């Protein structure tokens, strides 16, 4: 099984990567774990592959409370880094809940954030998918949509974003660094992704050839003691989320001062649960506050024929995640 052949080049710096990638039909190769699957499945057919895996962007640094992850840091290196396990256990947990040991040794931070949906209609050549072949329809809309989105979907696309790490980083207000023709820019991770609307073929707001170079978490260590990633999946390991919740709390004098909540498996992008966060702030993490956060999480959910069970699952996952971290000293 393989797709059509492509040209291959390896670049030594980000400028060369940009120049190469400015040609249409070019794909970046980092860890390759998603690119090769997509290529073999016929979901993409790049004319050229630009190997960026040896760019010097694999750092994991913790300085003055700020965590910086290079886009090419391997997931396994991030998850086992002592500053990550100590100050950002949520990130380590989310990564260790992802994929398998082999994949985590290959996959990179940037590639993980930019991986494509696992929607079977997208991944299987011959099925209708507007994300793969714009204009040919969404097979999942009236088909097998058990995994489909509850929020943010459109008549063109109901696929979900598969990354666990992106959900954790969203709850932590991470920012992403990108490098492109306009130079370097930095913005909140939540602004990287776009909703499908009428153009589901575009997952992100990145310009053509623009390269994710890193992730910053400016200051979130205050959440270290109260953070969790709860991933509900169809088997215990090596499986994508049906529903997942990243939750962080900062509690002072028995009251929640800050809450960060994001959900995975329920939307085309990591889904920030802002209303749930708002209902928690100023209250004690008691059963009523937590139940209210659960209720808020599912407001405006729009189920299809086969994914309605995820509404209750999401509510209960939010509640369980908050119970887990709300009671710790």
């Amino acid at each position, binding site marked *: *099984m*393989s*797709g*059509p*052949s*492509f*040209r*291959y*080049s*390896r670049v030594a710096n980000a400028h060369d990567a940009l120049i190469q990638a400015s040609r249409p039909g070019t794909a970046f*190769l980092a860890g*390759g*774990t998603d690119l*090769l*699957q997509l*290529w*073999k*499945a016929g979901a993409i057919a790049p*004319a050229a*592959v630009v*190997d960026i*895996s040896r760019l010097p962007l694999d750092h994991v640094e913790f300085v003055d409370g700020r965590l910086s992850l290079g886009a090419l840091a391997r997931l*396994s290196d991030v998850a086992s880094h002592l500053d990550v396990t100590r100050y950002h256990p949520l990130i380590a947990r989310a990564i260790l809940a992802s*994929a*398998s*040991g*082999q*994949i985590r*040794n*290959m996959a990179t931070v940037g590639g993980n954030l930019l991986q494509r949906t696992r929607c079977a209609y997208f991944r299987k050549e011959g099925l209708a998918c507007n994300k793969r072949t714009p204009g040919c329809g969404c097979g999942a809309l009236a088909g097998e949509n058990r995994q489909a989105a509850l929020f943010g979907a459109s008549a063109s696309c109901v696929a979900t974003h598969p990354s666990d790490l992106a959900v954790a980083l969203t709850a932590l207000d991470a920012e992403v660094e990108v490098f492109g023709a306009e130079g370097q820019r930095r913005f909140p991770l939540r602004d990287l992704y776009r909703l499908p609307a009428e153009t589901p073929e575009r997952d992100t707001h990145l310009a053509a050839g623009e390269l994710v170079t890193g992730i910053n978490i400016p200051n979130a260590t205050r959440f270290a003691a109260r953070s969790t990633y709860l991933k509900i999946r169809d088997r*215990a*390991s*090596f499986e994508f989320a049906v529903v997942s919740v990243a939750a962080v709390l900062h509690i002072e004098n028995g009251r929640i001062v800050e809450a960060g909540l994001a959900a995975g498996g329920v939307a085309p992008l990591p889904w920030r649960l802002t209303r749930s966060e708002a209902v928690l702030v100023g209250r004690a993490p008691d059963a009523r506050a937590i139940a209210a956060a659960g209720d808020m999480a599912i407001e405006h959910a729009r189920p299809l024929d086969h994914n309605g069970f995820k509404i209750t699952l999401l509510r209960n996952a939010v509640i369980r995640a908050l119970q887990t971290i709300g009671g710790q000293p």
Partner: protein
Amino acid sequence: MSPGSSISVSLKINGRDHEFSAPACDTLLDVLRDKLGMTGTKKGCDMGACGACTVLADGRRIKSCLALAASYDGRSITTIEGIGTLNNLHPLQAAFIRHDALQCGYCTPGQILSGLALLDEKPADLEAIREGMSGNLCRCGAHPNIVAAIAEVAGL
């Protein structure tokens, strides 16, 4: 370079240097098996799910079906051919036999390589072994015995 053209790759495989040219889109798995005749590494799903193609790259386990050979140029690869010999099995291979950790044997090279890398990660308990081996599927269902074999070598 035109589509489909070959590029030159050098790999150190099981301690020996190999230099060859291969199509740019060849995976490490295909190069090992079809180019170099090292068929111990198996092709199962060819999509990163089953783990039959597991090899070590600079000591870390990877799925060779999702690795472009070109991207691993200059790297050091360990395959099952580099682990033990008929007369001198690696302790993990011997443990697999003692624990009856295989039936058809197709997934075994990948299980052994993955298990070796997991042993380096020092799994704390049986649960850590089960979780750590979730990237290697055994359709014959020998998973409990595979976990037992790795646990024995880990001293658990």
